[in-house]
């Protein structure tokens, strides 16, 4: 708990200070991708790590957020913060609906049905041309006000700092959630449904609350991404985002808050490092997943952090 808080605060400080040391458009571009990935991985981890089910269709919420932001900003000219709030709310509503259906299922059934929902949404994005412009996608998403001024570098720096802000909010909410009475209930369900029920915890409800929170965060991440690349197509529902999320969370360590952050940084850097070998990159990712499951089931941070709280017996009281 304390370790995670300190680690996250330190990471925040480093992230804020980085532009003072490292400069250049490319570095800022990487920074933006990292912030986006941190949000995505944190959201995915809420379900994988704290509900204990694997939502292989989690890109559904990313895609919904991206499309909502794209449509509202390009059609209605809504401002950045409003579209992002709408993206969160609409993704959360979808999360409520999809979660209410899928959380009655366990294990492989949960995996497959969440995947089905993402596929259905992808097909809709592909075929409902009046709304989504089909496979062509929506391009020319207007830049937010704060990214209008200055040269390209300054705009990227603005995006980077907004990204830090969003990622920080994401992690703050997740931190509060995980270490609250509600988060503990979700963990209890993950560890043992029977015990959880026997002490008065309603498994479905806490699964759903977590699911909706994760969906909303994904929606925000999707909206942020849509603004940054100023284009949204059906592939936001696709599998490549899913693969990245999966690796970030597994390699970093599911069920910890720090793990996905570390995973996100590593995966983004690795992706850039392997940029010239685009397909080989994903081959390697496949092997990484296998290797992590076989040799490092708790992920990198699983070894280092303890997600559970310790109770320190107060010396003063005993003395």
């Amino acid at each position, binding site marked *: 708990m304390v370790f995670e808080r300190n680690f996250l605060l330190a990471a925040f400080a480093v992230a804020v200070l980085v532009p003072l040391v490292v400069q250049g458009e490319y570095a800022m571009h990487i920074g933006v991708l990292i912030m986006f990935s941190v949000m995505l991985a944190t959201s995915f981890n809420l379900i994988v790590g704290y509900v204990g089910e694997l939502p292989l269709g989690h890109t559904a919420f990313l895609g919904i957020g991206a499309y909502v932001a794209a449509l509202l900003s390009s059609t209605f000219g809504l401002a950045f913060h409003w579209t992002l709030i709408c993206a969160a709310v609409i993704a959360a509503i979808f999360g409520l609906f999809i979660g209410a259906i899928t959380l009655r299922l366990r294990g492989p059934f949960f995996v497959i049905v969440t995947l089905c929902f993402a596929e259905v949404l992808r097909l809709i994005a592909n075929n409902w041309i009046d709304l989504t412009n089909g496979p062509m996608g929506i391009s020319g998403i207007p830049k937010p006000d704060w990214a209008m001024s200055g040269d390209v570098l300054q705009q990227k720096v603005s995006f980077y700092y907004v990204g830090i802000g969003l990622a920080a909010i994401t992690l703050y909410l997740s931190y*509060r*959630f995980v270490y609250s009475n509600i988060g503990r209930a979700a963990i*209890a369900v993950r560890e043992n449904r029977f015990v959880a029920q*026997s002490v*008065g915890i309603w498994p479905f409800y806490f699964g759903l609350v977590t699911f909706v929170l994760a969906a909303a965060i994904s929606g925000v991440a999707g909206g942020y991404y849509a603004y940054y690349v100023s284009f949204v197509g059906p592939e936001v529902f696709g599998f490549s985002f899913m693969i990245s999320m999966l690796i970030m969370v597994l390699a970093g360590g599911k069920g910890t808050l720090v793990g996905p952050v570390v995973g996100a940084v590593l995966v983004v850097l690795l992706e850039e490092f392997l940029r010239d070998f685009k397909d080989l990159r994903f081959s390697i990712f496949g092997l990484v997943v296998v290797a992590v499951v076989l040799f490092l089931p708790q992920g990198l941070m699983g070894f280092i952090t303890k997600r559970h709280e*310790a*109770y320190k*017996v107060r010396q003063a009281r005993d003395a």
Partner: protein
Amino acid sequence: MLEVENLSKRFGGLAAVSDVSFGVKRGEIVSLIGPNGAGKTTCLNLITGFYKPTAGRVTYDGKDITGWAPYAIAQGGLIRTFQKTNVLKGLTVFGNVLTARHRHGNTSLLRAFFPGGAQRQRERELRDEAAEIVDKVGLRARMNTEADSLSCGELRLLEVAIAISAGPTVLMLDEPAAGLNTEEAQQLGATLKTLVGNMVDALLLVEHNMALVMDVSHRIVVLNFGRKLAEGLPEEIRSNPQVVEAYLGKPAA
């Protein structure tokens, strides 16, 4: 305060429990005994909502709770343990007990995100209460040990701690003495007696250890083949020929 009326449960063609009635009054320790397969654990599962009864009624404090979901029954203060030891394996002893205090803590999402002073205070209290319970069952030294690495006896204690932590009105223990030696069982008996009227209003015990049952029970209900065979004070049960027969078989004529 807990009344079971004509409770029945069939699994396919098999009648696991048929037409069982008994009650638990405030301040009482009632034991449910019977040979293996007599339907004791099934009874417990029916009372706590883990199984839905085929027929019959369970009332608690005058409310009909038949067929409620397990979590809802537990929220009413009917807390049970499991025959096969069930704890939250990946958490520490303290984490287990703290988690089990769930229904005494905040369940508002907004307050979880933006805890005010009162909320933080409540959280501190929860932690202190949990630590106190760990202390009370004698696991203080193991406070921050993962549940995975506890011994069998310690796991039993932790299970009781979890149940107590949930704040039961009626506590139901499923074979708490299984795997304990005589001395440990005696210790458990002593603890159980102090529990009633102190931390819980009544206790329902499913148990095989006769010494323990005779020692602590105010009343005993005997099941055999899913039916109620007898009910009475410990002395009555001890000398009841039907009960002796159920346990030892018919004496040779």
